[in-house]
């Protein structure tokens, strides 16, 4: 059975070019880049090359790149580092109700430590009201934190407009771009963001490496104190192979930015159109106009998402509901809840996220496999009768 991977928003395979570039840095060029001898100087230029490659993807200066261990670390560093460094100036953070847990949980923690947090609502398409955002700014506001694109629905936020608002009010602006990188142009100058987080494993680099862009002149309190690495913004021996891999992945992402996302988008659209045609009472979650090219989040009225996922998995198709890291959670995703999706319908949500390796045959196979599974589950659902759903609002 051919396995089909449609969970690229959870993680991606390391690209072969990336792995190849990393391999020498495990056992041969294994030195600590902070060392002054050959074993260190063999390695430190590779770190700086990677820094330039990342900076090129973001259109920033290499010195503004700090390597971290993951997207979550970057999110925590941006939020806690700002709250700590700007504590004298204010204690108010504005974010959205649909951020990744790495932002939301951090905000909830900061609330316990005296920070006030405004969680902006979204509308039924998952979009923000920018007037409300601007009105929420107070003299005590130190940070606006809005993700570039949502991991569950793929909804893209108007980062450029938000950047302009933040500049106008002289408030720092952080964007979690973990899902946006490699799928959209992520240009920190155009968007006027001050802080921006990335995660390697979402763009074909390995797990265990991330990036926080910190615009010059925006000092942060480190999350990890210690050695002098990363200009004292993040201590700890550099994850050399991971960083090298991240650099290559960024270079590849930039090269392919005009081709791959477009191809992926046409496959995604084919999948979406096919499912909407073949399965009744399906709802697409998230704005159709402002959406990542690779993401398709659907509700199938009358059935439960995990049951559908497990059937798909048995058929070799990997997908997920909500973000993978909260799959220990029960109940509806906080993102769909914020979009006021009916609670019963919200339980049927499934995220299909395509990647650069997705093939047209994969889509054909999903279109063949998925509709009968939905039918089978609906046939045994007490909420589904004679082709229509009694409990759910349904309809697309």
């Amino acid at each position: 059975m051919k396995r089909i991977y449609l969970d690229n928003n959870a993680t991606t395979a390391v690209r072969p070019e990336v792995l190849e570039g990393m391999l020498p840095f495990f056992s041969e060029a294994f030195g600590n880049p902070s060392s002054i001898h050959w074993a260190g100087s063999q390695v430190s230029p590779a770190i700086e090359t990677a820094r330039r490659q990342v900076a090129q993807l973001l259109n920033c200066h290499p010195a503004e790149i700090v390597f971290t261990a993951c997207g979550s670390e970057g999110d925590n560093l941006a939020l806690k580092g700002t709250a700590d460094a700007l504590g004298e100036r204010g204690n108010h953070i504005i974010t959205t109700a649909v951020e990744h847990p790495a932002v939301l949980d951090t905000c909830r923690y900061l609330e316990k430590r005296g920070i006030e947090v405004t969680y902006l609502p979204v509308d039924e398409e998952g979009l923000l009201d920018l007037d409300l955002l601007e009105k929420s700014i107070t003299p005590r506001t130190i940070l606006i934190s809005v993700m570039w694109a949502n991991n569950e629905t793929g909804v893209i936020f108007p980062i450029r407009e938000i950047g302009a608002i933040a500049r106008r009010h002289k408030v720092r602006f952080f964007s979690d771009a973990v899902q946006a990188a490699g799928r959209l142009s992520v240009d920190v100058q155009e968007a006027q963001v001050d802080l921006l987080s990335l995660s390697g494993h979402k763009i074909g680099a390995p797990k265990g490496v991330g990036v926080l862009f910190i615009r010059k002149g925006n000092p942060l309190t480190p999350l990890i104190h210690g050695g002098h690495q990363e200009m004292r913004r993040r201590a700890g021996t550099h994850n050399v192979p991971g960083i090298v891999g991240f650099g290559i992945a960024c270079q590849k992402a930039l090269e392919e930015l005009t081709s791959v996302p477009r191809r992926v988008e046409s496959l995604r659209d084919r999948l979406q159109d096919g499912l909407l045609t073949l399965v009744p009472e399906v709802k697409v979650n998230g704005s159709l106009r402002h959406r990542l090219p690779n993401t398709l989040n659907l509700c199938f009225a009358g059935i439960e998402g995990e049951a559908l996922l497990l059937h798909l998995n048995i058929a070799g198709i990997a997908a997920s509901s909500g973000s993978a890291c909260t799959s220990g959670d029960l109940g509806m995703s906080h993102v769909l809840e914020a979009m006021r999706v009916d609670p019963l319908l919200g339980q049927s949500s499934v995220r299909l996220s395509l990647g650069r390796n997705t093939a047209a045959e994969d889509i054909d196979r999903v279109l063949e496999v998925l509709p009968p599974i939905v039918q089978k589950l609906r046939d045994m659902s007490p909420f589904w009768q004679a082709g229509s759903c009694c409990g759910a609002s349904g309809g697309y």
Partner: protein
Amino acid sequence: MYSDKVLDHFTNPRNVGEMTNADATGEFGSSHCGDTIKVFLKIENSLIQDIRFKTFGCAAAIASSSMMTEMVRGKTLEEALKLTNEMVAEALDGLPPEKMHCSCLAADGLHKAIKNYLDGNK
């Protein structure tokens, strides 16, 4: 994550469906996660002659429902009332800890249907 038995009952659930001439029905929904079961019973001489179910829920809920029907078909109502969620989970060779609550659905739905039957007969 799931035992082979769970996967078997999930992919190939026994006794799924409705019953037009049921002697009793019972619906039970988990307040915890919204999973819901509807149980249909055909009862003769205090024996469960036939049983059907419909379930909205995850794999654990569906497999528990299916296993439950197998465990009580042909049993007396008295015996069926003694069925516990733990017995269902055990018969499935266990469930992941975070999914244990899904097995509640099955026994509770069954008990609801029997209770409805007994209440109606009184």
